[in-house]
């Protein structure tokens, strides 16, 4: 069966990797769409420069006789001019336009949407792991979390109106790896990392390789439903900072939004309030249901994904390599003295 897959957000890393891998599959042709020209190698993907925020996208779907749509063009943090307004426009209006086009296109039989773990919010009342059917204890009210919730509700709307379309929503954990650029990555790369005082968030990560593999499985196996995707294990914020060798300074919870605003204005990294909650209380998803449905297991653990990222960044001033000689000296002094005298 010849399939035509439309991948949105193809100029970014995840889209490019998925597009490339899909295009290599026998009998599948891939149309990649994005507003900016691709900066990654797209292989056999045919690139169409189009903006999903306007109705042109419907024409693209019709002329290429697309039957499968993979929607990856969501933005997790405000970048470039326009800031948060432009981000919301891309996420929400873009998705609405794309879904409107899908509803019109009778050939479309499958839709895969990238969503995010941020739909679960983050609060002190959270269970250890969220399963797909759990409601958030604190509904995300700002930023990417809110956008993701809205995107999912529009996608479910389409699934109701077009029951013949197999709709899969994948809630991806925070991406982490050597080539990832995200607010979390930029945060962990700061020379001194501000950390919320008295809290140690549990982080669940996902390596881009696994993200691509999961999207690929969802696209090829047609598993309708909503699924969590992430590594099975967790790392705590403290562990992450120790592994990176970065010194942390404690910031009281009440001052965190002010500091996040300052960092954003300095162009270092920016967090919306719901992302601050995530870095305070942590959030972990139960990923067993996607494994049961497709057999997918993340190859990178959260720790391995973090190590992959750290291997590509210079070690921090408190890295183990620098501090271990000090410990060796302490050990020699303590034991040799005892040996000499005892």
């Amino acid at each position, binding site marked *: 069966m010849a399939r035509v897959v439309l991948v949105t957000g193809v100029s970014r890393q995840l889209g490019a990797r998925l597009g490339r891998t899909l295009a290599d599959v026998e009998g599948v042709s891939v149309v990649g769409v994005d507003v900016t020209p691709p900066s990654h190698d797209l292989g056999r993907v045919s690139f169409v420069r189009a903006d999903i925020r306007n109705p042109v996208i419907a024409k693209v779907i019709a002329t290429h006789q697309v039957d499968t749509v993979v929607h990856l063009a969501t933005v997790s943090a405000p970048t470039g001019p326009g800031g948060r307004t432009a981000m919301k426009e891309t996420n929400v209006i873009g998705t609405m336009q794309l879904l409107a086009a899908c509803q019109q296109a009778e050939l479309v039989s499958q839709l895969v949407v990238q969503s995010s773990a941020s739909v679960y919010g983050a609060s002190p009342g959270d*269970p250890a*792991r969220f399963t797909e059917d*759990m409601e958030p204890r604190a509904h995300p009210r700002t930023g990417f979390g809110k956008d993701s919730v809205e995107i999912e509700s529009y996608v479910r709307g389409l699934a109701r109106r077009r029951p013949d379309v197999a709709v899969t929503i994948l809630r991806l954990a925070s991406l982490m790896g050597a080539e990832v650029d995200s607010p979390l990555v930029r945060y962990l790369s700061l020379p001194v990392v501000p950390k919320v005082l*008295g809290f140690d968030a*549990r982080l669940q990560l996902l390596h881009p390789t696994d993200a691509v593999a999961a999207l690929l499985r969802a696209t090829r196996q047609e598993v309708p439903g909503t699924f969590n995707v992430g590594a099975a294990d967790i790392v705590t914020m403290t*562990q992450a900072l*120790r*592994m990176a060798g970065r010194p942390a300074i404690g910031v009281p919870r009440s001052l965190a939004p002010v500091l996040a605003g300052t960092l954003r204005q300095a162009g270092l990294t920016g967090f919306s309030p719901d992302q601050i909650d995530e870095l305070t209380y942590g959030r972990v998803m139960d990923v067993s249901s996607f494994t049961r449905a497709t057999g997918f297991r993340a190859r990178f653990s959260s720790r391995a994904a973090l190590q992959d990222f750290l291997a590509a960044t210079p070690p921090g001033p408190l890295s183990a390599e620098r501090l271990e000689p000090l410990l060796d000296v302490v050990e020699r*002094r303590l034991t040799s003295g005892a040996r000499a005298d005892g």
Partner: protein
Amino acid sequence: MGDAEIIDLGSRRPGPGEGSEPQSGTRPTPGPSDPRPDQPNAGPLLGLSRLASLFGDGWNESVAAALAFARSRLRGDYEVDEFGFDPEFTTQVFLPLLRPLVRSWFRVELRGIENVPKSESALLVANHAGTMPLDGMVLQSAVYDEISRHVRMLGADLVFATPYSHDLARKTGTTLASQEDAERLLAAEQLVAVFPEGFKGLGKPFADRYQLQRFGRGGFVSAAVRAQVPIIPVSVVGSEEIYPLVARVPALARALGLPYFPITPMFPWLGPLGLVPLPSKWIIEFGEAIATDELPPGAADDPMVVFNVTDQVRETIQHTLYALLMQRRSAFF
């Protein structure tokens, strides 16, 4: 503590407190002509190691263990489970710090520990008292020392919303008191403890001591029934006397967002000294397990069954508490 005076670190001359040297025997007296030019700044450390050599052969091993611990912490190379539980920190830092409090201060006596399974999962249900949740920590420490099992506690939202408390609670194995987490822990063959009275029990006036408060909504019972694990009633005597609560100042508590603001005979009048718990004598009795695997299927969703089991657990704990109080000579001995 007297040992600390033995060595005069500055001059390394035999000090007036060298009284213990004849007993140790093996240690050569460091003469003034022992300059060790290769280690000019090693004074304090060397002195410390000499002091330590008095303690015998275990020293090198304990240094190695302490540094191995420091290394794994430094690299972030230690295990943390999905709940944030850090077994290394708990067994090597948290429990050793609690041990003197449990053994020497509260002189905790365990009864019926054979009712606690050695490896399978079980739900411990205990009374909650004492203004501050020390009873959970004492239970965790005492059970670990007896049967080497970590007790995984279920805590209220407030524990996780408060700085440092969140961090410590997660590290030492506490997770949120919710049906989902309880079932997840029980499915993982863990020993789970719950204090169904919550803040109602913790913050009750001293006059109401050992009167069990309402047992929540019985969520813990349905979790145990669904997981088909035994419920073990745990009665703690001694916890009520550590901080006798005489007033709760609701207005101040509301302003601070706390369930109550404790006024005890010592707090806040004596400042930080008021935080020292009174040295009451503790008895923890583990009752016979209440089996849940014989209940009919679907019992977890049958409110009447759940209420009945809840009442049974509550009655058992209340009766045991009265019996233990009758046997006790005084609150402090």
